[in-house]
């Protein structure tokens, strides 16, 4: 049975994403679900390149390139301008990477969500500043190698839980989604589209270049992250109502780490520690969801 995903594409081929780019797949699914009546606000991130260098364009929808830290504020402004024009049918979408969301753009995002600006904020998360050369971000997971956490100085801080940070704002809708689960992703986008106020989607997007994996297993890795509880699929409504969308069979995380070059220095002891962290996070989520 073919997966149930809308047919229409709003992207051109010939974009310059790396082979196997998860962020390109994430955009493809997002636009399929979202349709063309949108304006994308695009702070600096991989997608600033993928969308095309002037005068080229890889998207069939309007995009405003903007500065790294302004995803939330520019979207607020565009929304206000559209409202002044009486255009309520166009959705404003900020499409930002993890650096522009977790770190540099966080205050603008937090401010916009606190004001409950009427827009959708999508963070496609490839767990480091990939575009500029694989520097660690606060989204980089515990244990990962990056060019700024090289050799034995691999990252020993845990990944920031961005959804929880947004939930603390009592955001009307926050959800995680994965490129390996397109039906779930499409459903969440369609759901977000119909909600008023701030909406946040955290989309897991593999980066073969930065994660040191063969490009062909890009989707497989994304799927494993969900199957191993590393990246659970869930949604939170109004900051309180949790729904877990996929309850995995709790496979050990080991296999996921073993496949990726960025984790190749980890010992069995480190992996056991990571397993503990993943279990702890999952238990916490289950408690919140009341399961």
């Amino acid at each position, binding site marked *: *049975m*073919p*997966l149930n*995903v809308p047919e229409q*594409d709003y*992207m*051109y*081929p*010939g*974009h*310059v*994403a*790396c*082979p*196997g*780019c*998860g962020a*390109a*797949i994430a955009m*493809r699914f997002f636009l399929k679900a979202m349709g063309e009546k949108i304006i994308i606000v695009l702070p600096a991130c991989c997608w600033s*390149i993928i969308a*095309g*260098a*002037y*005068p*080229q*364009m*890889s998207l069939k929808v309007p995009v405003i390139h903007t500065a790294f830290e302004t995803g939330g504020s520019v979207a607020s402004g565009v929304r206000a301008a559209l409202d002044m024009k009486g255009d309520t049918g166009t959705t404003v979408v900020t499409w930002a990477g993890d650096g522009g969301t977790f770190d540099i753009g966080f205050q603008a995002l937090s401010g916009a969500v606190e004001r409950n600006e009427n827009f959708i904020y999508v963070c496609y998360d490839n767990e480091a500043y990939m575009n500029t050369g694989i520097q660690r971000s606060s989204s980089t997971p515990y244990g990962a190698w990056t060019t700024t956490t090289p050799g034995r100085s691999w990252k020993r801080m845990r990944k920031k839980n961005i959804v929880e940070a947004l939930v603390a704002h009592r955001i009307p809708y926050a959800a995680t989604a994965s*490129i390996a689960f*397109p039906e779930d992703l499409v459903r969440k986008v369609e759901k977000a589209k119909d909600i008023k106020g701030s909406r946040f989607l955290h989309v897991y997007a593999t980066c*073969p270049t930065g994660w040191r994996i*063969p*490009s*062909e*297993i*890009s*989707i*497989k890795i994304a*799927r494993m992250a969900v*199957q191993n509880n590393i990246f659970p699929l869930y949604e939170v409504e109004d900051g309180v109502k949790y729904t877990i969308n996929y309850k995995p069979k709790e496979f050990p995380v080991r296999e996921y780490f073993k496949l990726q070059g960025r984790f190749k220095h980890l010992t069995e002891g480190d992996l056991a520690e990571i397993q503990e962290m993943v279990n702890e996070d999952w238990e916490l989520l289950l408690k919140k969801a009341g399961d």
Partner: protein
Amino acid sequence: MTEKKVPSKVTPLFFARSYLSTEDNKTGSWRFLRPRYEEKTAPCSVACPAGEDIGRIEALTNQGMFKEAWETILRENPFPGVCGSVCYHPCEAVCNRGEFDEAVAINAMERFLADTARKNEFKPFLTNLSAKKEKIAVVGGGPSGLSAAYFLTLLGYNCDVFEAETEPGGVLRWGIPQYRLPLPVLERDISLIKDQGVQIKTGIHISKEFLKEAGESYNAVFIGCGYSRSRELEIPGEDLKGIKDGLAFLNRIRHGEKPRLDGLSVIIGGGNTAIDVARSVVRLGGTPLIAYRRRKQDMPAFSEEIELALDEGVVLKELVIPVSVVPDKGDYIVTLHYMRIMGEDDRGRALVEPDGNKTEEMRVKNVFKAIGEETAESWCVPPHKGEGVVTLNNSTLDCRTGSAVLVFGGDLTNEIKSVVHAVASGKEAAIALDILFREGLDTVESKIRDCLVGNGSFCSMEIYMKGPRFDRSSHVVSYSEINADYFYLSQRITQPRLLREERLATFDEVNLKVSASMAIKETERCFNCGLCNQCDNCYLFCPDLSIVRDKTPQGRHINYDYCKGCGICVVECPRNAMILEEETNEESAGRESCGS
């Protein structure tokens, strides 16, 4: 409308607006690996002696295209009804799904398709090739002879089948009990063979002399006489009147006799005939006991049949051989000698020897012998390899006589004596003859090799005729090559059967019909190993929008102008119908430097 004049001191806000698409960037030039659609071979189709395209049949069934699925069977096997009922389904033993949860119920699906075709009176759309001048006689109207005639007819030859009995079918009609193979199912398969253009002449006993004369009117004679005479036990008392021959007993039942068989009946043997006799004895009111010289796991009978027999109350006595039969007041005293296991042979069967003088006497009402069959006539035996003799996997060609070519097939040349092996033999013989007539004897062996399914030993007619299957890779898909993440655990259908109590009283078919909804559900379980079922994952997950839909049978193609060769499509293909290779073709991609 007049435009508002911008005050000269304010610089207008300048937004650089892109006006070209990225389509000018031929990102295909980045590629050093090249994905490609390549259908492969499913293990089931290799194990199937008829070489049926099982993965495709299940996919079509799942889409509700029952007629097309049934025709796909008919391309390789003229007996979907018969095989759907009595085939021992070696396909299911190698099904990759078996490693995931349980094998797909392929055999039940075949029978479902045959039943559906019969109910809806489907007519197959199979056209014979243009007529050839050669004429071929087929001796024996059993499964191998009818298969040979069917495939020869498809290839355009004129075929006459000569059958000694009053009706065609051979062992299918006279040897297999109705509770396994009901007559209407057999008749339907045979009528389709006739509709294809096969001439069947019944009541004609073939002698050695006929073979000599046949040279004048026929270019080849296929000999598929089967094993019709029971082997001898070679023990004292064997020739007693009243010691019954298993095959003859089954034959009498198929002719309508229903003798009452009270008391204990001992059946000597361990093959399918022994099981059939035992299960028939149950239905005639008797108590059967099978005496076999080795162990249950060594029995040549198909294991499913053995289990059903035991379920119906047949008693199995292992490791015994009869040494004498003595009549006593209307009964018989059978002396059984116990056997001892000495080891195992290279096929894992027990090697046995008499266990000292340990014997047991048994008073029984009836004795049946079913220790295997042999040919009734010596001229039916195929010659050994030599000048002018080509020994193939399932048939033997003898071109020594100078007149008609003799082809031996069926039980005579098959190691496993099953219906589906008979089909394999008839098909191989038909293809071999076509090669012989068209291209000569020297090429037969190599050309036959070219149309084997995968790495197996059975031919496919579709591959021989260079149909779509011809383009498939012969690589046999293993379970590790299936992307199991796209499948969910689901239970195999349970073949509906008559209750045991209902079974024991009649010769009605034991297996009940499978519904269309059950069939669609079951075929959904099939991995369709190596075959594209249009699931669209390749299209969906492509980051470069390089999978383009089209009207070809593949339904899509790869746009190598943009494909960067990431290989996601190949890994996300659930069924291994794609392949990722090193890029060698320099011209294929746009090699001019791209935009970034």
